């Protein structure tokens, strides 16, 4: 892939300016981001001016949402600025740029700028004119900034930006100034974040190729913005765009290279690109694995502390192991170089305090545990069972459900081998001894049909698999019978049938008679009692 901007080398001074500037942006950005937590979630970024930029325009800063009067004044100023720009279109470039700047300030001084009034006043046509070829860098930059913020609004406002799209894309060319390119990419990213219709338009206009050229830019903020915009462009749900992206020559290697060597912020964006690609194209998963994606990917997962990075990396891994056994084998073998292997890394995620990481890590583990016997053994012996048991007992519902999938998958043999009636007894016994039953019985009681089914199926495994009739005994002890009975009158036929079947088969008339007369009594009454309650359930800490 050709390098960006003529492939000349940046001075160290230039890149560190970018880095320091970027750091400052990030600090301020996170602060403001927290303030906006209540507002509608969007995949967009608003570009905002520095408050200290204009001492005289302190009034603009008052235009926060709560202050009606100030906001009205802001709207008026904006409309005036648009009219002013219109008048200056044919005037001197310097005056025009001044008008653009004024408009830009108005559109970027608050978190929710008065985009609607600007659009109504006809700003987009003017901005398109300002994007004509041959315009000065400053003019292009200001116009693109205005469009960026206009496109950060709701869907209707973003659609209004459509006439400007071809020019924005064309200005991504290799001869454009860096800050112009970045601003155009930003605007395009905002537009792409708003839905498949606009994404389609952008694709037809050639946005993908033009943006991907800048993935290799030596300017960190540019490569990051380009990656972010690309991730918005390919997020689908149609896989068309992702496929087109991966057809670009050198893309696989570029992505892998960034994951290996890029700064964390860049890796975050590239990881999201990978999330979409790995989800939509099995073929490219193979290509990426062959190109060496796994070691750096797993490395990130093992060492990063940043949730924003861990989320897409983990999900990428989850997508990879949701494929066939061979891919999972590759993952496991590559992961061996890490301490604890890939399973150890996933255990780390399970133990994180972030619910998303717990859930998606458990999902990944469940998929590995749905594979070959060898893969199941690797999971079982990889140290992930204790955190899973803990999660099953204590976590929020959807995490518990995923943990249940893991544990259950560990206990059943692959479809191909039907040993022992399809049950891996060693695992099952260990898990029951580890105290997983109460968690499954709780799932039986949950209102979610899928979860209840899982619980019932696991109980069936326990009661069928454990020798000497231990299964029903322990289910009874954990108050499982009442859970089953509750389902007997459930409106869902399937659940009703399943619970009835279990009750009939295991808690029928003969049940309980053995206690008094059966030969296995001593075994049943033996040392089982204490071992049914492992230390952690007696209040001790969990030793992982």
């Amino acid at each position: 892939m050709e390098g960006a901007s003529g492939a000349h080398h940046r001075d160290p001074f230039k890149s560190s300016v970018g880095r320091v500037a970027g750091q400052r942006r990030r600090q301020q950005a996170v602060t403001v981001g927290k303030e906006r937590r209540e507002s509608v979630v969007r995949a967009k970024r608003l570009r905002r001016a520095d408050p200290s930029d204009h001492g005289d325009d302190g009034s603009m800063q008052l235009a926060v949402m709560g202050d009606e009067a100030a906001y009205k004044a802001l709207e008026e100023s904006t409309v005036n600025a648009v009219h002013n720009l219109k008048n200056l279109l044919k005037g001197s470039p310097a005056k025009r740029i001044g008008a653009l700047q004024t408009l830009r300030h108005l559109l970027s001084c608050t978190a929710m700028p008065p985009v609607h009034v600007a659009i109504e006043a006809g700003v987009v046509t003017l901005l398109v004119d300002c994007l004509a070829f041959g315009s000065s860098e400053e003019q292009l930059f200001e116009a693109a900034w205005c469009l960026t913020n206009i496109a950060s609004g709701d869907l209707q406002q973003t659609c209004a930006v459509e006439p400007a799209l071809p020019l924005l894309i064309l200005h991504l060319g290799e001869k454009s100034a860096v800050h112009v390119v970045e601003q155009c990419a930003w605007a395009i990213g905002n537009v792409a974040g708003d839905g498949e219709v606009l994404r389609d338009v952008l694709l037809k206009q050639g946005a993908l190729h033009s943006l991907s050229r800048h993935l290799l830019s030596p300017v960190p903020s540019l490569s990051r913005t380009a990656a972010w915009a690309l991730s918005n462009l390919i997020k689908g749900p149609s896989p068309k765009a992702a496929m087109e992206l991966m057809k670009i020559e050198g893309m696989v290697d570029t992505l892998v290279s960034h994951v290996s060597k890029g700064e964390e912020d860049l890796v975050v964006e590239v990881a999201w690109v990978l999330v979409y690609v790995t989800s939509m194209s099995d073929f490219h998963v193979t290509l990426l694995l062959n190109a060496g994606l796994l070691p750096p990917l797993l490395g990130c997962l093992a060492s990063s502390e940043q949730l924003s990075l861990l989320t897409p990396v983990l999900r990428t891994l989850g997508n990879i192991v949701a494929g066939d056994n061979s891919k999972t084998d590759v993952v496991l073998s590559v992961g061996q170089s890490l301490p604890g292997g890939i399973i150890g890394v996933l255990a780390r995620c399970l133990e994180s305090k972030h619910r998303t990481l717990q859930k998606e890590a458990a999902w990944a583990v469940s998929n590995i545990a749905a594979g070959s016997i060898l893969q199941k053994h690797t999971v079982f012996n990889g140290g992930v069972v204790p955190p899973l048991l803990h999660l099953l007992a204590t976590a929020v519902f959807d995490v518990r459900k995923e943990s249940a999938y893991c544990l259950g998958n560990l206990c059943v043999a692959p479809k191909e081998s039907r040993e022992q009636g399809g049950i891996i007894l060693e695992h099952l016994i260990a898990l029951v001894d580890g105290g997983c039953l109460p968690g499954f019985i709780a799932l039986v009681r949950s209102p979610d049909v899928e979860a209840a089914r899982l619980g019932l199926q696991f109980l069936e495994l326990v009661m069928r698999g454990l020798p000497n009739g231990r299964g029903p005994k322990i289910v009874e002890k954990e108050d499982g019978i009442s859970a089953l009975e509750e389902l007997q009158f459930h409106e869902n036929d399937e659940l009703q049938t399943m619970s009835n079947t279990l009750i009939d088969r295991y808690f029928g008339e003969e049940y309980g008679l053995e206690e008094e007369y059966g030969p296995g009594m001593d075994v049943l009454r033996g040392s089982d009692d204490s071992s049914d309650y492992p230390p952690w359930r007696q209040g001790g800490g969990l030793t992982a």
Partner: protein
Amino acid sequence: MEEEKEKEEGNNAPKMGFAKWVAVRRKFAIDSPFFSAGNVERELLAKQISLEITEEEQFHIGRMEEEQIWQVHCPIVGCGTKLRGLGDLEAHYVSRHTATCSVCARMFPTTRLLNLHVSETHDSFFQAKVARNYPMYECLVEGCAGRFHTDMARLQHLVDKHRFPRSFHFHIKKHASQRQRQRYRTHRTPFPDNGHHQSKQSSMMSEKSAHKKATTGPTPSLSKGISEVQQAGTPEDGTGIMDCGSDLEMCMDVDELTTAVSRLSTIAKEADNTPSLVSFGHRRGHRMPFLSGQKNNPSGRSRGSSHGKQRQTSTVHQT
């Protein structure tokens, strides 16, 4: 979860089978609600409101760097932009002075667009081929192989296939003033001296007077091929629809035209000696010689091949 109804082997299984646990891989679509929790967190973290780093701040940040910051003005005559440091100079040079049309000084974001502009606007050979019904107008979107007979047809393609708005203009045409139209009608002068392409004003007038209607007998005036009106004033002026299809009136035999063109010595497309890779400073590999008269000098390092052709035109014509 996949469910298989299985009967237990050899047991008196109840009539309704129990769907036993089957371990199966579960894949989720990209927009599955399974991922929404993770997506929400991403959006919250991704709602970055970025600060503008003002020039001043950038300057101060730069000051803190080890390298000395020195102010310099761009040495290209007519530019004189204030720049700070080598990196800035490089970047400025690449963006301002390499994809600029040497005829009308418009700047383009890519080399390809510059070449298209030059061919379509300043190249009589291009117009000759158009007149012979070759599809010369290329689609502007990179990667698309479309070629069209007229600018309008190309625009239609952009609108239909690539969703460009109908109001999009690649070319800019300034409508001729009353006076200029008058002048062109009465003075059908042959193509005057071309040495002053830098001055846009004169450029426009010279083109205008050499508009296609001028016939000067058998001597081919290649300038007739130029059907577009060159823009006057600054390149950033407003937009007008470029309608070269209808403007094209070839009053002379196209064959004569092409013969004349073939008589020109071939000027390679790479007559523009601007290297694509430019670096500055004593540490760098090449040196890019700065010619102060660069922009103005038509005989030196011209950037558009058509410029060279036009220069040749005047020579041919004057003989």
